[in-house]
């Protein structure tokens, strides 16, 4: 089932972008899949000798990986409005900080088709920015703001991009790996 969904999504996204840029990984057929040549995603994990099963992404769920310059509101709109996909429910927005890049992961769900889809968008670490999907899924309103607040990833297109959990004057973005907690300033030390 999820392989079919993935194939469908891949086909659609390819059709939309008009070029072979989509990198994807599918966990179900276990051996490593051949990612598309030119956009081979940077795998941050080195193959470890002792793991019990192949490391994979988002178990059993289709996931596509994109670069932030390929990701756009129009592409998201296609995912939402396409007759065969209809990913109308946004479950979760996650931001992750890596040494060399940052990632935003959108988890979509289709209430009509009962499909799942993860979309992972990679963005450079200096000046990270991912097109906002808030105009399409209002659910992204707070979730993207939270990612911005804690990780400092900008979402151009969001109507109200400001901090949500931390106070407005807060400096830095705590969930970044290089964030240093100033215990003195917080009165903890």
């Amino acid at each position: 089932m999820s392989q079919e969904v993935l194939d469908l999504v891949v086909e659609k996204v390819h059709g939309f972008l008009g070029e072979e840029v989509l990198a994807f990984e599918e966990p179900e057929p276990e051996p490593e899949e051949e990612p598309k040549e030119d956009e081979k995603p940077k795998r941050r994990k080195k193959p470890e000798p002792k793991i019990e099963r192949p490391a994979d992404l988002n178990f059993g769920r289709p996931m596509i990986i994109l670069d932030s310059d390929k990701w756009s509101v129009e592409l998201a709109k296609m995912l939402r409005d396409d007759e065969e996909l209809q990913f109308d429910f946004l479950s979760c927005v996650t931001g992750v900080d890596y040494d060399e890049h940052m990632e935003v992961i959108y988890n979509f769900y289709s209430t009509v088709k009962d499909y799942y889809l993860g979309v992972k968008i990679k963005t450079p670490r200096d000046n990270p920015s991912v097109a906002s999907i808030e105009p399409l899924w209002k659910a992204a309103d707070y979730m993207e703001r939270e990612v911005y607040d804690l990780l400092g990833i900008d979402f151009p297109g969001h109507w109200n991009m400001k901090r949500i959990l931390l106070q407005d004057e807060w400096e830095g973005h705590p969930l970044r790996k290089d964030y240093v907690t100033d215990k003195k300033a917080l009165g903890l030390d």
Partner: protein
Amino acid sequence: MSINTEEMILNMGPQHPSTHGVFRLKLHVNGETITKAEPVMGYLHRGSEKLAEGFIYTQFIPYTDRLDYMNAMTNNYIYCAGVEKLLDWEIPERAEYLRIITMELNRIASHQLWWGTYLLDIGALSPFLYALRDRETVLDRLNEISGARMTFNYMRIGGVKWDAPDGWIEKVKESVKVLRENIAEYDELVTGNEIFQARTMNVGTLTKEQVINWGLSGPIARGSGVDIDIRKTEPYSIYDRFDFEVPVETKGDAYARYKVRIAELHQSLNIIEQACEQIPAEGDIIHKKGARIMMIKPPAAEAYTRAEASKGEIGVYVVSNGKTKPYRVKLRRPSFVNVSILQDMLVGESIQNVVAIFGSLDVVLGEVDA
């Protein structure tokens, strides 16, 4: 002649009796009509996700209790399930049943407390005390098995911490009977009351499209005719073994959400009853490795796991880099997403409805602020 009117900004909270915690609603009011609503949150932000990165996997479990402290069992579960997904562990049968029973008991406690406090918001005093009386039955059972009344810290990666004490299952069966009678009282006392109906019917109506677009889940979604219950659509744990219904109302108003929650109480009791019948008499309660190793090392991978909490879809996105500490734990808290609809649905409403609407969303601030 024109009268010059000024827009009034009314600050509801952070200290206000009906925001159920430290939540602030900045209401721009024209007369009694709200022209703009700005929710302000973060007063209770503890940086749970940042804390998770500094702990080994097991150490973070008690912190999940503090998110939605009314429904801590499901929070425990979702975090453990998220990590288990990376580990690809098989959970022992008995542990699964104990998880289900405790989670459903906790869902009942959560809904009961909501029922009480919502009626308190609406202005009725007694239901709150009735709800607390009945919740006590549930909390006693949870206390007996986990040793805590609210923040249980009961689940472990790979199973549960404690086996049920002797005779506990029987006690739960008894409690279910008692609760069934007590919950029937709720209907008698409140559901048919005309003042209550007048205050909740056609108040805070949400359409199906709104619900889906704003990512609302749980009883709010089901009150608007969106038939999503992750226990049914994507049965996690062993929910596929039980026979229960997903109550759905179509009106989308506060009263529909109320009805959904009351119906869910009965469904949870059904699940508990069945689980108590089916549970194996003995067996492991935790995966062998989970019991043995403190330093759990999931392989480098990431996954999103979701479950149905009493407030809606709770999810966790765990990223592991093969070390003993999680690389990133993202918590999808249902209340955080559900509360976002306020800025949309309050506009055009009258101030007198704010409390009735806000209460009907069942928001817990510990969860909103993480």
